[in-house]
């Protein structure tokens, strides 16, 4: 999965998100992403991360092996 695809998936699911992505290994499989969105506020980290993982509708853990996540509400 490419960096651009990751950003697109996240933005489609969380429209107001600002997304910073880093390719950790250059193998198209290990990325880290910082996602900032107001929609995270009041949610636990697990809920926030699930919102991001759900953006990949089932591809997370299969097409995308590792996405190191940092979520912030502002």
């Amino acid at each position, binding site marked *: 999965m490419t960096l651009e695809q990751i950003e697109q998936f996240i933005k489609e699911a969380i429209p107001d998100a600002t997304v910073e992505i880093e390719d950790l290994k250059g193998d198209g499989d290990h990325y880290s992403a910082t996602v900032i969105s107001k929609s995270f506020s009041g949610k636990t*980290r*697990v809920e926030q*991360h*699930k919102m991001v*993982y759900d953006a*990949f509708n*089932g591809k*997370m*853990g299969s097409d995308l092996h*590792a996405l*190191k*996540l*940092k979520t912030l509400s502002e």
Partner: protein
Amino acid sequence: MKNNDHVSQNIENEINSNEVMLFMKGTPVFPQCGFSARVVDILTKIGVKFGSVNVLESDEMREGIKKYSNWPTIPQLYVKKDFIGGCDIVTEMFESGELLELLNTNGIDVNPS
């Protein structure tokens, strides 16, 4: 997508019988994934006793645990039957001291090495 009964039962048994329970790839002595290894390392540094299951030994468990928690990746850490998170969240909680606090408030013994 619901697990079939005996997979859910196995998961429940593990979670009920271990205050701190880690579903991981490999074993604490031989972790077979960097993320699983890091969580083992954190739990070892904190010095908390924990149960573990090697999901690589059973595809049913490997997929079943993801459905059970509705979390797409392994490792998965549970404390007193609550899903705490995967490697990122456990690391973040460890670095902020939140993980130790969670264990203390749940009356779980730790002896940091």
